[in-house]
């Protein structure tokens, strides 16, 4: 890191003859002696030092940043306004007017009653189906954090293999520290409104969040992924893929104090405001407006006074080939930033730059396929539906409020003033002049009540449920609900089919999220390998303590989402499935075999929401898992029984006594080694379950690694093997001792001779002598013979041809 930062104060500034401070030019070197990343504010750390560009290089970089900010100004404005509108619609602000200068405002915001009062205007009421559908889509997409798997990029390279193994453990730590579940919800939200999401992963030093390292006294850090929507980042609009983007920019509004704490060497120079590039001013207004959740473009004065825009720009080396960069300058920049450049401004103040590759930090993710970078978001199609629905509902509301019929009474016949004085009569009473010859019943009439166009009600119903659901994919059936328009009961099979169809559609965004999370995980591994030292340990609920050596992560790895064609299931579906396994285990041998494994019983019980219940064998599994931790620390130990007998023999020999042959024979039968954790020689342990747990370990990935690993690992495997054998042998011995159930034999009554049948009947209390059974057999026999032998009786009236 650079050594010096000179922090200017009013007192330290050189003064002119009138005692005023002179303006200093930019400082050539930055004194960082007192800067500790993460001490006062979270800092995006890298092992790469800060670059030290000279003034000319800074000027060129500034130009490149400005060019990147100004690029595609028309389409950028278009996408900003679209997302601005979408976010406001989601918030409930749906009666928007185009604002002078771009963007949106609400009618009535300048009302004398203030912005809140105008929010209560009936003209601004909205029936927010976009918000509703966004909740549905987010709940569907964010059911489960995508699972990822690491692979070595070079399988023949031991470092690559080691890195992949270590990364497959590290990913649990990353998931916990980065809060991936919340991140997924944010991603789902941005897919709905913005469509394009930028994932940014880096090692963040933060004393407040992660504490101070006792040994170094410096703030700890962790790999954190943040996501940015369209308003918060800018990319070349025409690029189809990230590799075609020469520059990516991220904009964040920071409080001035936070910005100064983050970049203290530039503290006095950082002023509230934007980078000063007119083309991206509107982006800032849109960001602030949507974040503050205020009506229209109303922005509090204090926000403007305190916000500074932090602009981070990543350049690929190819960006230095711009025509504005001379050849010499290009070469100097490439020397300074061979992988590419990250340059950070706060407002208009340069903070730092460093050599950094954007593909190791950033991932551009799209919810849907399309052309270019401005694509349709999940809910973009609902905007016109929402607008129409609001208009129709307003119309319906107007009908209800304003079309209470008026009554007309004959003047001179009715006391109109008295009628009007009645304050609980709906509608207004008005006089009318009667014509001669009008009958009494025509002295008053009530206007017919206008009714709205009947189709409008149908349209409202359709646009409320069916149409936006089909446009956005936010269908009731996503969560196995009946469709609103289903008359009567709907078969479960139909609900399941509809749910699967709805999930298949949302699967587009889900797959995009999976790929992006895999890439972010890979970036996290790169950052951890670069910035961490020693052991990385975290307690992960459900897995225990996970430890990884940061050195092991230094290798070339690939990361892919785990293949799973199915959409993550909701809890009711999981519960249903697990209950089916429990109910079906009595008849289904496959389910029965699953239930037999104690580890599975816990999972199945949890899945069926029976977490409070103890499951048989669970305690034994836990005990054995703890013993496995010990067993894998060492090899087997000499058998103490054998040692004892050898000792005895040695003593006998030493005293001249003959050694009985049976003792020597006994010695031969004793195995030389036993497991370091003894197995109980009685029924006080669940030998079968513990043996099963050892068996599973020996045959799974970890066990096989030990079996084929180093000499120490192989010894540890042997240790586990002997422990398994001990349990298996003990289980067998205890089974042999238990009373045997005699074999059962079924004999049918009719298969027994008469004497046998008589005995069997006697056991039930019926005393039937064998002779009776014999008689019955005889009768049955005669009947069967009779049926076979005696022909059917020829009917007397059987026809016969005779000579006639």
């Amino acid at each position, binding site marked *: 890191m650079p050594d010096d930062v000179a922090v200017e104060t009013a007192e330290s500034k050189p003064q002119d003859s009138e005692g005023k401070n002179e303006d200093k030019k930019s400082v050539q070197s930055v004194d960082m002696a007192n800067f500790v990343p993460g001490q006062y504010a979270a800092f995006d750390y890298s092992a790469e030092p800060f670059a030290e560009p000279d003034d000319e290089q800074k000027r060129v970089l500034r130009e490149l940043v400005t060019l990147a900010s100004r690029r595609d100004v028309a389409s950028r404005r278009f996408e900003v306004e679209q997302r601005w509108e979408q976010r406001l619609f989601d918030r409930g602000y749906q009666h928007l007017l185009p604002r002078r200068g771009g963007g949106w405002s609400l009618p009535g915001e300048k009302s004398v009653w203030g912005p809140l009062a105008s929010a209560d205007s009936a003209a601004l009421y909205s029936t927010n189906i976009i918000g509703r559908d966004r909740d549905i889509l987010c709940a569907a997409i964010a059911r489960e954090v995508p699972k990822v798997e690491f692979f070595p990029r070079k399988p023949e390279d031991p470092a690559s293999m080691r890195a992949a193994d270590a990364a497959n453990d590290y990913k649990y730590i990353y998931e916990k520290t980065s809060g991936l579940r919340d991140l997924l919800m944010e991603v789902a939200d941005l897919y709905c409104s913005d469509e394009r999401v930028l994932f940014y992963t880096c090692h963040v030093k933060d004393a407040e969040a992660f504490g101070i390292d006792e040994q170094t006294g410096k703030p700890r850090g962790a790999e954190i992924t943040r996501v940015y929507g369209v308003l918060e980042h800018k990319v070349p609009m025409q690029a189809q893929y990230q590799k075609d983007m020469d520059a990516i920019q991220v904009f964040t509004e920071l409080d001035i104090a936070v910005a100064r704490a983050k970049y203290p060497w530039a503290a006095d120079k950082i002023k509230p405001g934007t980078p000063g590039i007119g083309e991206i001013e509107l982006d800032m207004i849109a960001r602030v407006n949507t974040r503050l959740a205020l009506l229209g473009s109303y922005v509090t004065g204090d926000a403007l006074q305190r916000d500074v825009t932090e602009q981070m720009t990543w350049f690929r080396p190819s960006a230095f080939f711009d025509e504005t960069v001379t050849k010499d300058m290009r070469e100097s920049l490439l020397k300074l930033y061979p992988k590419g450049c990250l340059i950070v401004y706060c407002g208009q103040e340069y903070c730092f730059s460093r050599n950094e590759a954007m593909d190791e930090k950033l991932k551009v993710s799209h919810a849907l396929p399309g052309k270019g970078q401005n694509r349709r978001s999940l809910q973009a199609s609902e905007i016109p539906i929402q607008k129409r629905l609001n208009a129709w509902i307003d119309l319906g509301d107007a009908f209800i409020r304003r079309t209470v019929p008026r009554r007309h009474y004959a003047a001179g016949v009715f006391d109109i003033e008295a009628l009007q004085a009645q304050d609980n009569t709906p509608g207004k009473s008005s006089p009318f002049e009667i014509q001669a010859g009008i009958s009494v019943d025509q002295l008053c009439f009530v206007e017919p009540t206008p009714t709205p166009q009947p189709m409008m009600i149908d349209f409202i119903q359709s646009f409320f449920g069916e149409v936006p659901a089909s446009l956005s994919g936010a269908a009731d059936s996503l969560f196995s609900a009946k469709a609103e328009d289903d008359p009567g009961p709907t078969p479960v099979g139909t609900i399941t089919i509809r749910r699967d169809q709805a999930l298949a559609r949302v699967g587009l965004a889900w797959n995009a999220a999976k790929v992006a999370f895999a890439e972010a995980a890979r970036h996290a591994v790169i950052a951890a390998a670069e910035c961490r030292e020693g052991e990385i340990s975290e307690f992960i609920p459900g897995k225990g303590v996970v430890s990884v050596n940061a050195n092991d992560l230094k290798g070339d790895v690939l990361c892919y989402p785990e293949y799973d064609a199915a959409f993550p299931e909701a809890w009711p579906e999981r519960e249903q499935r697990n209950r089916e396994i429990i109910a079906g285990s009595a008849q289904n041998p496959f389910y029965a075999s699953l239930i037999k494994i104690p580890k599975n019983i816990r999972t199945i019980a949890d899945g069926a929401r029976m977490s409070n219940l103890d499951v048989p064998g669970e305690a034994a599994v836990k005990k054995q898992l703890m013993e496995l931790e010990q067993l894998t620390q060492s090899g087997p130990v000499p058998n103490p029984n054998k040692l004892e007998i050898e000792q005895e023999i040695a003593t006998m020999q030493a005293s001249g006594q003959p050694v009985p042959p049976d003792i020597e024979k006994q010695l031969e039968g004793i195995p030389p080694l036993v497991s370091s954790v003894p197995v109980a020689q009685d029924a006080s342990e669940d030998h079968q379950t513990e043996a099963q747990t050892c068996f599973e370990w020996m045959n799974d990935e970890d066990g096989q690694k030990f079996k084929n690993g180093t000499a120490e690992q192989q010894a540890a495997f042997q240790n586990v093997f002997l422990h398994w054998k001990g349990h298996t042998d003990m289980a067998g011995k205890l089974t042999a001792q238990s009373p045997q159930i005699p074999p059962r034999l079924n004999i049918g009554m009719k298969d027994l001779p008469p004497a046998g049948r008589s005995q069997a009947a006697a056991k039930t209390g019926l005393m039937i002598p064998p002779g009776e059974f014999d008689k019955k057999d005889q009768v049955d026999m005669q009947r069967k013979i009779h049926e076979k032998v005696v022909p059917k009786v020829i*009917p007397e009236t059987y*026809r016969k041809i005779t000579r006639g």
Partner: protein
Amino acid sequence: MADTPIAYVSRHGETALNVESALKGWLDAPLTEKGMGQAERQAEVLATLGLTKIFCSPLLRAVQTASFTAGIVGIEPIQDRGLATWHVGIFEGVSKEDAKDAIQLFLDNPSVKMPDGESIEDFEQRIAEFFTMRLAQAEKDGPYCFFTHNSSISALSNMLSGQRREVVELSDVIPTGGIAAVYVDGGSYRLEAIFEPTDQETPK
């Protein structure tokens, strides 16, 4: 016992359904090559017997068989429904083995009509009416020749003897292409097989 037959009853030649041992009923299966050979051989035998009239069942196999004899003796066969086989309705084409129990059921219940077919009673009545009349005529004008089917011949044999010796449709009185002679026997008649084809002969 008369020595001279008053009539001859000929079973049609082999059809594909005979080969498959299936119930034919009123399915109109034609003769096979072998069946034609049998019909030819049959015709050679019948041509020597001085036939005066030929009757045949209206079903194709019987008509075909009769045409061989008619061609030699020069007598046009008269088709008569009375010689048609038992109409077994839904069991047409079903193998005898598979339909055995069902056939026995209808035989044991003679008044029960076979689905889409006829009851054994109706069938026997039809046969009885035909042969009562025609045999009486044959006694005077004969010998006649009747080209018919196995079930008809079985039923005739039973009705001539007054006993159900033959199981109609399930037992063969004479083989395909065979000939039986009808003799006067006291107040009734007697049926005896007199010719069985032996080799498969192709038509000349």
